[in-house]
């Protein structure tokens, strides 16, 4: 019975204490739901949120993520805002899906361009830094391209190259000309591939702008047009 008496004596003061202290702090109680604040479109928080949920699965940074890393500035040197916005809205090549409203995607055109500007502000270091290499694919000469490829690229990327073939017909069917262009121009340093103007095994000074166009034209010409071309 002593325990009961003690409890009885202690219960009222402790209850009052608990109520008083919680009433004093009612606005800061941990259970109070956060007011749902939506980050303003185009703000860095908004961009990061959208990017992290919708883009990062493929486009991350360094050697993370299978597609071109958008959190590194190499890509932003090689692409214009218009290009990126169009890719977001309408997709790109074979594997980049469209996120625009015409396919029931989540982004309106204004959101897509806000996202592009936001990403460039976060990771692109401002403006396009190699204007001569931005924009869409420039037509090149495939024959010249093969000669350049054999000298500059084949040691690593040829049919028996040390880091795997880029003339593999299966690979070429998955990568559009635009994708090849981006790959040559931006490279992927974290995975061992230099950008267009960085030293390569056969080319200590990298490629010239014309040579980039020629190499892309050559790779494009190697792409099988139909299944029958792929039969051995």
């Amino acid at each position, binding site marked *: 019975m002593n325990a*009961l008496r003690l*409890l*009885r004596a202690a*219960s009222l003061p*402790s*209850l009052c204490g*608990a*109520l008083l202290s*919680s009433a004093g702090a*009612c606005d800061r*109680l*941990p*259970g*109070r*739901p956060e*007011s*749902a604040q939506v980050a303003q479109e185009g703000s860095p928080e908004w961009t990061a949120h959208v990017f*992290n*949920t*919708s*883009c*990062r*699965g*493929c*486009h*991350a940074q*360094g*050697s*993370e*993520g*299978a*597609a071109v890393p958008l959190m590194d500035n190499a890509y932003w040197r090689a692409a214009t805002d218009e290009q990126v916005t169009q890719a977001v809205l309408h997709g790109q090549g*074979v*594997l980049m*899906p469209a996120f625009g409203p015409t396919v029931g995607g989540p982004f309106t055109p204004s959101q897509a361009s806000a996202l592009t500007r936001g990403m460039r502000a976060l990771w692109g270091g401002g403006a396009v830094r190699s204007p001569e290499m931005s924009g869409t694919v420039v037509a090149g000469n495939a024959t010249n391209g093969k000669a350049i490829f054999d000298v500059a690229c084949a040691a690593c*990327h040829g049919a028996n190259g040390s*880091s*795997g*073939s*880029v003339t*593999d*017909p*299966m*690979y070429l*069917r*998955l*990568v559009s000309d635009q994708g090849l262009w981006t790959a040559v121009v931006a490279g992927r340093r*974290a*995975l061992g591939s230099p950008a267009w103007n960085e030293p390569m095994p056969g080319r200590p000074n990298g490629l010239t702008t014309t040579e980039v166009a020629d190499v892309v034209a050559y790779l494009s010409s190697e792409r099988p047009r139909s*299944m029958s071309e*792929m039969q051995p």
Partner: protein
Amino acid sequence: MKAPRMFGVAIDWVESRTGAVAFIAPLLTHHVPRNAKWWYVFGSATLMFFTIQIVTGVCLATLYAPSAAEAWESLRYIDQQVPFGWMLRALHGWSSNAMVVMMAIHMLQVFLHASYKFPRELNWVTGVFLLFTVLALAFTGQVMRWDQDAYWGLGIGASIADRVPLIGNQVRGLLLGGPIIGGETLSRFFALHVFVLPGAAIGLVGLHLALIMKNGISEMPKPGATVEPATYRAEYEQRMEKDGVPFYPDAAQRDMVFCGACLVLLVVLAAVYGPFGPGGQPDPTLIDTNPRPDYPFLWIFGAVSLLPPASETAVMLVAPLVGVLVLVAVPFLANAGERAPSRRPGMVLVAALAVMAVAALTWEGKTSPWSPVMDGWSALPTPSHFLTGRTPLEVQGANVFQFAQCRNCHSLNGLGGERGPALDAIATRMTADQLMRQIQQGDGNMPAFGRNLDSAQMTALVSFLTTLRPEFEAPAVIPGAQLPLPVRQMPGEVATPVAAGTQ
């Protein structure tokens, strides 16, 4: 006139016209067993939580908009705009869970002490009806939130109703107020939650209490002290007269202390963890959702998700009926004899198994990763160590892996869905051919992707998957195959052809 005298006159005035004191006084002073002590506080605590539910529920009903278009918004309004509105919702939600828990403990105690035996069979039966009424209140209350949990909870309820033979469609129509979940559904559940079920619960509580007064509180069971229907009542009354204590204040003070402690705990839970939901908007086109029922139903959710598909209809429709019948039948199967748990080991085992089963299934329901991670493909990048040293085709395969949303169900490096197996070391278990077949045709829960991926995508994907194995761990081979299989050597590994069947 002095104040106490005035009070007495007022009481007399009321008493002479209503007989209220004559009615209440025996309720307060009726004798209860001296040895009941702390065992009997759980019923009172359940009643206290029910009272809290009524008070907070009435307050919420003044703020809530029971229309499909406004319900969700009105909860946001209560949470954000109404002073202490969130606290009201938190108290109502936590008190609901606490009431179910307390009722379960109360029921378990009554079962273990066999208090349901003569003459208290109907106390138990009204208690069982109260149990189902309270569970119905909890379910309809979950619907009031009108969020994704509510929507899909209703969907599951409706599809169970749909399985009833012959009249399934009609039962579903009755439940939902139409063929689909809509405005009528919410109105219907609102009427149930605020009028029908609370009314039923209040009536049943009254009946339950009246039966307690009629039959008295049972004594603590003593081994050897058996219940004999012929003599029990006379013996009980004799004992109460000799050895009983008045309910107020002797037993009531324990109830008050326990209820007070429960109340403090409730306020702390509400203040720290806040209200339940509302989760996302109840929009069936939003598939990026992971709906789960509230706590009282998680064990059912867990059980149903584990059922073999062929048994679903039979179990879902028959098991609840059997459950109700068994619970109602308990006091009629054994209403006399020993009450002490030590003399009823079988019943103790039954209770222990029931508690363990519900606990395990609740855990299963809470943690089972039954929903894919819907944004896994677009939010979780392929980890570096699965990309370095890969050929361009294999890197494209990693792209296909994201593109085809494999990541939503399969994790890499611990991130991703858990519907399917983690694929970090899939190449040690499956050869390229086996992977190709699995992806094209699907198997078990895995859908077939053959029509969704062209040959280049498939080739790239399989070539990527064949690189998914820890360094220096042997790739999968087909036991007994005659030819050496082409094996993808990882950078740094020595090229030694793996002879088939040598493993």
